[in-house]
């Protein structure tokens, strides 16, 4: 019986090519849109997290106890070279960056603002998170005798600074004295991390150590881990190795980012459900119509003695074939769009200001995961199944002769 139903289903699809093609195109386009949207949403949040990890927290950061509660130079990491030596013994660490920072006041001839002076090693930051790629203007260096500084793009804008502008930074040193130091802007950075872009001035580690009267000290040592799965393991090892130091993962340092991700996931889910319902209704509608418009044909089959189960199987096989071919075409189109969006990205520079306010990039890149395609498969499968239930119920209830005589439907 399945053989005949199968044969009839194939014939029906093949000999009504235009209708079959329309249904397949409709399913494929809905699905490709669904996949593209999912990848783009995930890509937005992944970009946000990656930017934060690259520009600041790494996967793990070390802080002196209490520093995060009281950002005073009394709570900093000392004997940094000893810590670095120990870090080299831990497996799974790809790179690390030592940073020293102090909050203070940045001033130009016309304006002054609260800011953070960050001492970094350009070379290490480059290895750590390709920091040089964040340079939007000027050069990625501290100039002659390390008298230059890199500045966050938003802060530079607020202070009307450009390459070559001179700034004075005033802050309290380790002895409690208020000191000032001047720098010339050598580069402007746009990291995509609002905390850095709006608030930070980057100078050489030697310069800030001298300015703050500190040696062998750091406020943060940020680490990059080889494998994302190793983060917790490396954290545990470091906690054993440095019992008097705070060893924190990026998600512990940026709980807001996790909240944002959770909110985004809920938002994504809601959007996904809406798009899925629209796509499912589309698939449902098309298959429903394709079955209903052939109610007379099915009634003829029933009238001449075809068992209901065979007609039912034929309808299910037809809908499944349409759903499956539509899925394959949609998955292929979706894959192409995801590959394109994950490599070339989508240029949304016309909305740049709004997007950057929330830390999103103006060029959005999509994520691509295998599970998208499994989810999409089940989405199409259920939509297809739902779409045949109603016509099958009608078909079960009707008297074939009434449909044949045009008294029903």
């Amino acid at each position, binding site marked *: 019986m399945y053989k*005949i139903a199968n044969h009839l289903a194939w014939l029906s699809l093949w*000999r009504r090519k235009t209708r079959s093609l329309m249904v397949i195109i409709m399913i494929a386009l809905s699905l490709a849109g669904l996949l593209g949207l999912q990848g783009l949403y995930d890509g937005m949040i992944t970009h946000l997290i990656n930017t934060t990890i690259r520009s600041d927290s790494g996967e793990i950061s070390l802080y002196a106890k209490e520093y995060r509660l009281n950002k005073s130079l009394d709570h900093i990491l000392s004997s940094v070279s000893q810590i670095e030596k120990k870090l080299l013994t831990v497996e799974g660490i790809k790179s690390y960056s030592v940073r020293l920072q102090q909050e203070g006041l940045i001033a130009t001839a016309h304006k002054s603002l609260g800011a953070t002076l960050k001492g970094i090693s350009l070379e290490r930051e480059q290895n750590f998170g390709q920091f040089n790629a964040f340079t939007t203007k000027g050069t990625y260096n501290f100039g002659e005798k390390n008298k230059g500084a890199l500045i966050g793009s938003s802060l530079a804008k607020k202070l009307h600074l450009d390459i070559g502008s001179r700034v004075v930074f005033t802050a309290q040193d380790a002895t409690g004295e208020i000191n000032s130091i001047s720098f010339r802007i050598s580069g402007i950075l746009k990291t995509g991390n609002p905390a850095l872009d709006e608030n930070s001035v980057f100078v050489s580690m030697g310069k800030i150590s001298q300015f703050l009267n500190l040696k062998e000290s750091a406020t943060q040592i940020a680490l990059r881990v080889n494998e994302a799965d190793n983060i917790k393991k490396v954290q545990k090892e470091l906690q054993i190795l440095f019992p008097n130091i705070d060893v924190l993962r990026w998600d512990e340092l940026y709980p807001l980012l996790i909240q944002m991700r959770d909110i985004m996931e809920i938002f994504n889910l809601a959007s996904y459900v809406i798009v899925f319902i629209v796509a499912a209704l589309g698939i449902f509608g098309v298959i429903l119509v394709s079955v209903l418009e052939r109610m007379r*044909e099915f009634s003829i*089959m029933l009238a*001449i003695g075809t068992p209901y189960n065979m007609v039912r199987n034929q309808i299910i096989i037809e809908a499944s074939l349409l759903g499956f071919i539509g899925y394959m075409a949609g998955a292929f189109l979706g894959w192409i769009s995801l590959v394109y969006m994950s490599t070339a990205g989508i240029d949304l520079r016309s909305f740049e200001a709004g997007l950057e306010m929330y830390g999103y990039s103006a060029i959005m890149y999509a994520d691509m995961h295998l599970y998208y395609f499994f989810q999409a498969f089940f989405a199409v499968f259920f939509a297809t199944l739902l779409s045949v239930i109603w016509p099958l119920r009608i078909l079960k209830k009707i008297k074939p002769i009434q449909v044949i005589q045009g008294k029903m439907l």
Partner: protein
Amino acid sequence: MKLIHITKTFYPGSPKEVKALTDINLTFEKGEFTTLSGESGSGKTTLLNIIGGLDSATSGQIFLDDEEISAYSEEKMAKLRLHDIGFIFQAYNLIHVLTVRENIGFIMKLLKFDDKQIETRVLELASILQIEDLLHKLPGEISGGQQQRVAVARAVASRPKLILADEPTANLDSKNSERLMKMLRMLNEKEHVTVIFASHDKYVLDQSKRIIVLDDGVVIDEGL
């Protein structure tokens, strides 16, 4: 086949209530060649549908070989239609995605005849009905008369015990009507297939061995 006190009321209890058949009592013997006749709306098609199990009576009983088929479930009735009854509808009602060859062999396929048997029977019927050249065509590609001949071939292909034909000549010219009736007479005589028509076509009435006249759902005349 015995029909006892068959009545059929459409929309019972509603203002639109229509009594289509009233107290029909008839017996059909094996090998009959009978026509249910009457004006349009007299109830002949309704009676034919009830005989074929395509519709159910509001009251009354139908017996086939002493077995009450009016109490059959839909599934059992479908099985009976598949095995024992061939239908010829006024509007042909072929399956449009199947070729002429596939339409003729469709019921045989459902009855699990092997492909060779089906092909032999299809060619035999196609030759009798002169539709050999149409076997590869879809119903939409052939004329009404040709479609009706295909419908006849489909109805008789599996050699059912009973053939029910509703106005089979209504859309045919005289030549095709003659050919169709000749074919059904031959089946009736050679294979003792019982044939019941619902028709008011004079040519069909002339060919019939028995005529049952209905008027407003009541049998008003019955004769040979």
